[in-house]
């Protein structure tokens, strides 16, 4: 890995004068250090109808540490959700994202909260990336009032409009035309921002995707379609569902880029490139080569259609958190112990939040009838026994 430090003596002396939180007096505090570091992505980008971006990615210690912490948090959160589901505190559907964290954090590093993100149902970590809190996640999963959708949405319906996260959608593929609609509105409003519409390799075959892509290309919409290719659409491997699993090429006249989705820096580079492209030239497709450790959902063991060796192989060779850990250690930005401490901290934060979430009450029965409309018009609605339960819609 090529490595270059840019060092200025003045900043170094300033650092030495600052009180150091670390126990090692000579270590530079990395939580605020933004001295640039250049890292080479290990897998080159493959491009379709465009020039690939450079494999040299600019980053800094602060960003790398943030990547580590955020991904560790997401990982811990998803594993905790697994336990909660098995304890029957989470019901219904629960689609976990562990293994794919690099896509969520890498994307956020390249964009602002004014850019829009929309995804399907594997949305817990994307929500956290957009600024959602752990409490909102766990409370929503358990159907409590403190949840981001006040307990009325569930795992597949997280939203955070104030940071332009538009969900959270249960119908495979529907989020892509919706995302192109967001891009339309951004262009209409002259906001100079873009939309990332995420979908899986299973959804990539949906017709409405191509309808939306056609319109986006026709109207030059700043839409970035991101295929999170974890190689399995539920239990069906990509080669059994797609005649051509080169999803980044599916746009035909729309350019595409294939990206190592387990490398947060590669993801960041690709998203930065895509944003610049989309603002000038309209839609582009990013295919993130990623992997989910869990099955499709909690009712899928994930091992009937893939071997345990394959799963452990990816964990060994390509785990996104391990990659960042190695990068941080090899650049001497933190010690192993410091990183382990972060992981312990994150684990505690998750455990404490779950305790807090469990205390949040379930919604009031009257919530059955709220938010049906934005403007209720004083109309009546009914419960199962309409002579027993009626309400006026607010």
């Amino acid at each position, binding site marked *: 890995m090529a490595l270059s430090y840019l060092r200025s003596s003045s900043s170094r002396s300033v650092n030495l004068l600052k009180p150091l939180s670390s126990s090692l007096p000579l270590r530079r505090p990395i939580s605020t250090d933004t001295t640039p570091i250049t890292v080479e992505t290990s897998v080159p980008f493959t491009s379709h109808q465009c020039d690939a971006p450079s494999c040299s990615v600019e980053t800094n210690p602060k960003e790398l540490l943030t990547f580590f912490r955020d991904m560790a948090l997401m990982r811990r959160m998803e594993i905790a959700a697994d336990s909660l589901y098995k304890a029957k505190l989470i019901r219904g559907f629960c689609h976990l994202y562990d293994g794919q964290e690099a896509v969520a954090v890498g994307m956020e590093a390249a964009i602002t909260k004014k850019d829009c993100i929309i995804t399907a149902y594997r949305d817990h970590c994307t929500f956290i990336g957009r600024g959602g809190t752990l409490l909102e996640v766990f409370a929503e999963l358990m159907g409590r009032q403190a949840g981001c959708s006040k307990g009325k949405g569930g795992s597949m319906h997280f939203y955070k409009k104030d940071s332009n996260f*538009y969900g959270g*959608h249960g*119908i495979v593929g529907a989020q892509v*035309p919706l995302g192109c609609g*967001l891009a339309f509105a951004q262009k*209409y409003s002259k906001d100079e921002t873009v939309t990332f519409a995420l979908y899986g390799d299973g959804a990539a075959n949906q017709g409405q995707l191509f309808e939306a892509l056609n319109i986006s290309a026709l109207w030059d919409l700043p839409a970035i379609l991101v295929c999170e290719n974890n190689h399995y659409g539920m239990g069906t491997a990509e080669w059994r569902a797609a005649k051509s699993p080169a999803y980044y090429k599916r746009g035909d006249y729309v350019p595409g880029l294939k990206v190592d989705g387990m490398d947060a820096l590669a993801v960041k580079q690709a998203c930065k490139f895509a944003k610049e492209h989309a603002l000038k030239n309209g839609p582009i497709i990013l295919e993130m080569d990623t992997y989910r450790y869990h099955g499709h959902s909690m009712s899928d063991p994930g091992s009937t259609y893939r071997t345990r060796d394959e799963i452990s192989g990816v964990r060994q060779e390509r785990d996104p958190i391990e990659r960042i850990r190695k990068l941080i250690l090899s650049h001497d930005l933190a010690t192993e112990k410091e990183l382990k401490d972060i992981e312990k901290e994150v684990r505690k934060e998750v455990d404490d939040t779950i305790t807090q979430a469990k205390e949040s009450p379930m919604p009031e029965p009257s919530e059955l009838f709220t938010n049906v409309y934005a403007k209720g018009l004083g*109309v009546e609605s009914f419960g199962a026994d309409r*002579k027993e339960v009626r309400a006026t819609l607010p």
Partner: protein
Amino acid sequence: MLGVVRQKMLGQSLPKIRPVVSVLRSYSSAAKQMTVRDALNSALDEEMSADPKVFLMGEEVGEYQGAYKISKGLLEKYGPERVRDTPITEAGFAGIGVGAAYYGLKPVVEFMTFNFSMQAIDHIINSAAKSNYMSAGQMSVPIVFRGPNGAAAGVGAQHSQCYAAWYASCPGLKVLTPYSSEDARGLLKAAIRDPDPVVFLENELLYGESFPVSDEVLDSSFCLPIGKAKIERVGRDVTITAFSRMVGHALKAAEILEKDGIDAEVINLRSIRPLDRSTINASVRKTNRLITVEEGFPQHGVGAEICASVVEESFAYLDAPVERIAGADIPMPYAANLERIAVPQVEDIVRAAKRACYRSVPLAAAA
């Protein structure tokens, strides 16, 4: 609005439907006439002018001036940014419309007919109708889906279905069915201004019909409330509910019934969801008899809901079973004679009203 009175227009050639004319302060025949087409066009024009977030999207809405000329002149006036011709991809452009509404724009998405809305129905129901609820109020969807609904003339089974019952069964949607030009203007303006997803069901055969419109209706601030039915004709003996084109049939039936001494009250529903149950029930409590009229298929139809509502709320007031007049329970045939008996006719409404008033010979036993 003053009470409604029929006026005989002597020696004038009448449009196909004789509209009921409201009493004007002076009896001058200078009441302005407006076609439903012009009413819709002017409503779109005024709302687009008032709010830059409103835009129109659909097949042929721009350069072609609208498949039925409803959007005539709008491309020229507002430009291609705000009047968007789409490819023939309903799922794609309906989804794009809903996404734009998520961001805060106010799309008016036209389906060339609502038969084609089935290609996009997942976006109407799952992406639009349910979002405000699932997000506990974060994602409101101020979109209007509009276009012709129901039977036209000789267009066959795939182009003739009425979707009122389907959409009106879904919580989170508002479903409107204008009849007259006043309805068209007032309800479309209300729909565009409303922050919730509205399904706006027009009727191709009504586009060319003229109705009188007052100055109030012509004013750009004119708006009708959503969820309120209109009593088109006050009566004492039997209530007839109808929507869209069937309102005209019901009014004609009422004229025929009057000659036989039956005074029918005709309710123009205007809004299928929310349904104006209180107006319907108040009317039935007065007349004690009810005929529901709709163009669509009978099973699980609008009339079935109205009947259930009346049985629940006003059972003691019913002096006769509720009668339903609806489209025949078959896919729409092409041959003109078959088509005629597949859709409710005025005589069907008259016959049903007489049955409800115990004025007809009992029907032969069903086969």
